[in-house]
């Protein structure tokens, strides 16, 4: 009989009058990879917190390794032997790999640090897995996949029995993810269990032994491996349709052109994007797109090559002011990075308008007219005096509406669907389409292909910092994109 590592029985969790977890029931066996697809993000972070630590619950019981650790009458606040791996690394960036694995470990009791001993121990751990990472390197110098691997090793070395993996495909490329999944399978043989949180069922079906669907704080379905199929999921998920407009743009001139651009992780890349076109650059190794983002933000100077906007070359020094050149950038998880919570919706919306109008004072008349124009899109929220009470969907609307109003020539979007639940992903697709309808060129920088296909007109594959020789129209995609299933 299979042994359980975690059992959550009839658990309800209410915070500030909101029911985040509603009568949740599920279990994870030892050595199992349990998938969890949150259809909306409601209750997801509360569930993670609950598994990591025995915080108070209103109903139900939680068993960890066959021990009752938390129940409705008494929550001890103790931590379970659970480790969370997500994009925000829990490693100490300014310490070396071996310090992170060995010293910052509950089982380490030496007071004096003996580097040689640490290095030997860490090298042995890595050697077992056939991984070559310099253990003397500082964590900040590692790539995302290396950090994820070190976190995994550290978790196991720390005695974690259950590891929560939060949306790996948001920060690992297809190639990296595939390698990481091999490591997971290796550890399952050592009876380590995983809760694999993922937005896309295609990814979950590949690696998980069972998959649970979470919606509105409830587990609405648990699918066994033998039942994995699109049909079994159809009643629960939304399907997004694609309307390609690429053919209409074939005769237009490129609005943005990269010519032989080289940087640390970019090797002579060439591409152009046209007005109203959506181009996706899929980075197989998760290296080059970070450099593209850094270059357009002025943080990294290109070694050679040119960037032309509307036929004019933009010197790098001027790129720092990319907005003036008509190039906008939406970072990954843009809400906290681009919006100002303490000022009003309208002020946020019109934040860039002074640059557009080249005026430092914007007249009330102009603001009133913008307000009325965008009321149709934003509704009553346009009157909000701050952003604290707005829902995530409204905040995403605001991020994109601001650019619709500014109307740049090109918008680069880094991983637009990262951390978004199914409903939000649907809205982001609509928002990107709105940009395209305004004849704004869109360049999506992605490491995972899912959902971007719903808006993209053309796809470029980047591998080891090089772009594949030819681009691919949407209709060609399924035949060559790794991991893509129609």
């Amino acid at each position, binding site marked *: 009989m299979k042994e359980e590592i975690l059992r959550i029985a009839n658990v309800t969790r209410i915070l500030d009058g909101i029911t985040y977890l509603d009568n949740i029931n599920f279990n994870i066996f030892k050595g199992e990879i349990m998938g969890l697809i949150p259809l909306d993000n409601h209750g997801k972070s509360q569930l993670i917190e609950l598994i990591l630590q025995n915080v108070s619950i209103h109903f139900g019981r939680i068993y960890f390794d066959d021990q009752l650790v938390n129940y409705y009458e008494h929550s001890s606040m103790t931590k379970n032997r659970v480790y969370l791996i997500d994009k925000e690394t829990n490693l100490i960036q300014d310490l070396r790999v071996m310090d992170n694995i060995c010293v*910052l470990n509950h089982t380490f009791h030496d007071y004096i640090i003996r580097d040689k001993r640490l290095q030997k121990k860490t090298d042995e751990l890595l050697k077992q897995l056939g991984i070559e990472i310099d253990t003397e390197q500082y964590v900040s110098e590692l790539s995302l996949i290396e950090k994820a691997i070190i976190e995994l090793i550290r978790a196991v070395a720390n005695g974690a029995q259950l590891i929560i993996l939060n949306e790996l495909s948001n920060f690992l490329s297809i190639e990296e993810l595939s390698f990481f999944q091999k490591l997971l399978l290796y550890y399952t043989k050592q009876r380590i269990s995983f809760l694999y949180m993922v937005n896309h069922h295609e990814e979950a079906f590949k690696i998980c032994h069972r998959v649970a669907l979470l919606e509105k704080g409830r587990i609405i379905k648990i699918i066994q491996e033998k039942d994995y199929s699109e049909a079994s999921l159809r009643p629960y998920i939304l399907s997004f349709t694609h309307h390609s407009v690429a053919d209409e743009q074939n005769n237009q001139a490129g609005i943005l052109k990269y010519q032989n651009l080289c940087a640390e992780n970019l090797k002579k890349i060439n591409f152009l994007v046209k007005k109203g076109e959506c181009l996706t650059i899929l980075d197989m190794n998760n290296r080059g797109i970070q450099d593209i983002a850094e270059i357009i933000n002025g943080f990294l100077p290109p070694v050679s090559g040119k960037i032309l906007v509307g036929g004019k070359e933009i010197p790098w020094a001027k790129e720092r002011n990319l907005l003036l050149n008509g190039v906008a950038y939406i970072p990954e998880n843009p809400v906290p990075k681009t919006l100002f919570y303490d000022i009003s919706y309208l002020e946020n919306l019109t934040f860039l308008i002074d640059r557009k109008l080249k005026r430092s004072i914007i007249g009330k008349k102009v603001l009133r007219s913008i307000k009325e124009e965008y009321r149709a899109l934003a509704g009553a929220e346009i009157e909000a005096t701050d952003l604290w009470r707005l829902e995530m969907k409204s905040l995403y609307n605001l991020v994109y509406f601001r650019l619709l109003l500014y109307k740049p020539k090109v918008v680069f979007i880094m991983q637009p669907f990262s951390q978004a639940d199914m409903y939000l992903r649907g809205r982001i697709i609509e928002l990107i389409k709105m940009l395209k309808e305004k004849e704004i060129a869109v360049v999506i920088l992605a490491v995972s292909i899912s959902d971007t296909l719903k808006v993209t007109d053309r796809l470029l594959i980047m591998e080891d910092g090089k772009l594949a020789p030819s681009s691919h129209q949407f209709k060609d995609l399924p035949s060559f994109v790794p991991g893509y299933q129609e």
Partner: protein
Amino acid sequence: MENEKKRNKLKRLLAKRGMGQVITVTIGLVGLIIVFGLLNPIFLSARNISNLLRQIAPTLLTGIGQSFVLITGNIDLSIGSVVGMSCMISATLMTKGINPWVAVIITYLASSIMGLLNGKLISKAKLPAFIATLGTMTIARGIAQIVNNNYNTDSIGEAAEGFMQFFYYGKTLGLFNTIWITMFIWLVFNFLLSRTRTGRHLYAVGSNIHAAHLSGVNISSTITKAYLVSAFCSTTVGLIITATSGMGTMDAGNSYELYAVAASVIGGVSTLGGQGILLGTVIGASIWGVLQNGLQFAGAPVAIRNIVIGVIVIITVLLDIVVRLNKKVGKAKAGAERSYFPVLKHKI
């Protein structure tokens, strides 16, 4: 084989975080020494160098304390006042006839209370470091004033001769004791920072407090330790000042917290926490001392000296930023030329 080992050791030393800045400022320091030596040959005389080292000692000691605190991502503004408080407490006790060594122990204990208070206010009461240490700065200065009824003390007398010799006037192996004391303290704290678990925890807290907490690091205790080190160093400086002047002065240590920040920052300790080494603080404090001493020899008035030092602080930090940016560009160039090699040679 032996050569390769040596080369690896050197490579490891150079790869140490913060070493880049240390090398940059060391070059600057050598440049300053050459310039001042050329302007006035007395600058490089053995006597002046010995005096210079003794002059650098207080800045270095307070710099060590400030570096510990900065590495945890905090700041200690109470350093100067703790110096003043230590000076006044020790001198007052000695003038009241208490054995100087007992007075030294009492002074260390009194100052460690300030360190403890700083640490707990920041880590337990969650007060911003700037505010908490601003408060203790005023408190410590108040204690310095109240301890002898708002007067500087009289001379600490002949009974304290041994104390004065130990902390300031005495020499061992041809070097002033102040320099030996500073070197000893530096060695101990450098070992603590670079070779012990506490050291790793200090960096961890400054680098990512959330991750450090998740890794089982006791945040409160780690921050408190940093402030205790700072208080210990400040107290030692206070005792050196008492030994120097042979009396307690209420204004002792004024602005020392700023000198300490300058020594640390010039030496590459990040004000954002998590980065820096004590070797850098040595160089930072030396630059500070060489500028003071060298400009004095060059006949520059105090006002000009202050302006020059301020400008040099800005230039050094600016230089560090430029070096880091160039490093990034260099890395970019190297990356564009090299081909990727697989980091992961998995066998699973």
